[in-house]
């Protein structure tokens, strides 16, 4: 029987990690992740899990310890935010290139400078090409569910890639919401027993990790890694189908909301998607055909499926809680634009950047964007392809 509780996002994810009971956790505290790992280390101290906690002196070290522990043959977790993820950057590529199924919740927070501890997607966007799988979560329930599913995806024998679970700092990590917990036993059965490929500690079968690969072989390894990414969406869907059987909750590569017959649409990640859905309902009540697409599997990006889901729209706005400085548009916009490029008939696409450093994303922001999309759909005139919203001019 599911247990209904009112908990914070951090508490929910920490509980998911407790239920999985991993072998090793190497983590370093950083706001707003701190309270998640503090709770998890409490589980370790109380003997609720058999996890070995490694206290490290930085995130570069935490990810390095995770790489070692995972290669050794353990089921390994860590968690971070913001500067912590940035400091891990070098080792992120080693974890994915070595195909180590490490699971890491990322509590999304802005990057310094200027120093800011609030919700923003710049941290995870900076790691989007690191070879990690990224699952994004609208609320505490999704963060909890994604964390449990992440183990099955990461550890699938056809995949063996590390997974990040993204949730919005403070907005989700520190807000109390109603969520449904699965039973410990259900989670244990769902994730199953961990089996590492080529564990270093299997002394009967000695192996070497981390060799120098020269130009005569490097591209073959990279091509192999790229090919693995193409298998991820199917595994994500299979795992989601199994998860639905035990939870009753349905997950896909992305979520669409009133999108099928929509004429205008919004693409938006994480917690702001919920606020947008409520505004879309208001517009629908006024007879305006508005819809939404919320990416869930953002890396590898399911561009074919996403393009198919959006191509019928007349006007579409991608709202991003991160910019990509010096680039043409913001991160998610570029992926959506690439998804739509092959189609002759496609929506007019605009880009808004919102909510940086925890700036509130309010219903009125969604209203402004939807009203602009109505105008674009009618007239075809675009006044600005890319702009910041909710900023003082």
């Amino acid at each position, binding site marked *: 029987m599911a247990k209904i509780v009112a908990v914070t996002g951090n508490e929910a994810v920490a509980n998911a990690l407790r239920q999985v009971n991993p072998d090793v956790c190497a983590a370093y505290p950083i706001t707003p992740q701190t309270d998640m790992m503090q709770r998890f280390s409490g589980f370790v101290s109380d003997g609720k899990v058999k996890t070995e906690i490694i206290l490290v002196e930085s995130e570069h070290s935490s990810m390095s310890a995770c790489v070692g522990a995972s290669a050794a043959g353990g089921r390994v977790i860590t968690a971070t935010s913001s500067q912590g993820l940035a400091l891990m950057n070098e080792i992120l590529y080693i974890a994915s290139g070595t195909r180590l199924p490490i699971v890491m919740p990322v509590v999304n927070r802005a990057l310094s400078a200027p120093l800011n501890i609030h919700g923003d997607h710049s941290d995870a966007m900076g790691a989007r090409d690191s070879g990690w799988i990224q699952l994004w979560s609208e609320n505490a329930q999704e963060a909890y569910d994604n964390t449990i599913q992440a183990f099955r995806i990461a550890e699938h024998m056809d995949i063996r890639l590390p997974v990040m679970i993204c949730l919005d700092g403070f*907005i989700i990590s520190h807000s*109390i*919401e109603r969520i449904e917990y699965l039973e410990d036993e259900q989670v244990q059965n769902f994730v199953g027993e961990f089996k590492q490929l080529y564990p270093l500690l299997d002394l009967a079968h000695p192996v070497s990790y981390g060799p120098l690969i020269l130009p005569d072989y490097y591209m073959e390894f990279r091509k192999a890694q790229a090919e693995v990414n193409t298998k991820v969406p199917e595994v994500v869907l299979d795992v989601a189908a199994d998860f639905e059987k035990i939870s009753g909750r349905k997950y896909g590569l992305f979520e669409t909301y009133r999108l099928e017959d929509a004429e205008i649409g919004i693409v938006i990640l994480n917690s702001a998607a919920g*606020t947008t859905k409520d505004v879309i309902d208001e517009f629908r009540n006024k007879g305006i055909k508005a819809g939404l697409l919320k990416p869930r599997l953002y890396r590898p990006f399911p561009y074919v499926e996403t393009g198919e889901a959006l191509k019928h729209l007349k006007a579409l706005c991608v709202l991003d809680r991160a910019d990509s400085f010096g680039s043409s548009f913001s991160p998610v916009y570029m992926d959506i634009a690439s998804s739509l490029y092959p189609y002759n008939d496609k929506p007019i696409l605009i880009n808004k950047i919102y909510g940086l450093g925890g700036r509130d994303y309010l219903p009125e922001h969604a209203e402004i964007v939807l009203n602009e999309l109505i105008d674009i759909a009618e007239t075809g005139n675009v006044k600005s392809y890319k702009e910041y919203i909710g900023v003082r001019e």
Partner: protein
Amino acid sequence: MADTLEIRWHGRGGQGTVTAAKVLADACLSGGRHVQAFPEYGPERAGAPLRAYNRVSSHELRMHCPVLHPQVVSIVDATLLDSINVTEGAKEDAAFIVNTSKDPQEIRKKLNALPTQKVYTIDATRIAIENIGRALPNAPMLGAVCKVTGLVTLEHLLEDVRKSFGKKFSQKIIDGNLEATRRGYEEVKEG
């Protein structure tokens, strides 16, 4: 959205305002309801003004932004009335619950509340000092909010306070908080 109740709390760091919002959310879980409780995070200093929010609804709560138009505004510290506009954005039929020893009529005047809005007072700090021995007005405020909103029964709320405080505090403190909550529920005055 009519079946969603939105509450805004105004307090100062160290008064247990955030805890009150959390306990209320937990207590409102019953009957399959959806709940949210979240503070507005800033530099966390004792004495600094802070806001916290609750949403309670029969359907899924998807809105993830501060409460802009509260039906209930709970003011845990009356000294905030001079520095912060606690009526901002409040609905036309909003209820204000103020921790003060003053008369509801006097507070109504100070708030400049609309005739359609209700004003309640509760001397939560005095109740807290009498029952807990410290000026921690959150428990009586919780009782008062519960009475005004009718979200949960007093018995149910007391059970939740016992559960929430039981993890951290001694029996004496728990009993004091239970009594303070009950008195908040019973002594809140409308004016």
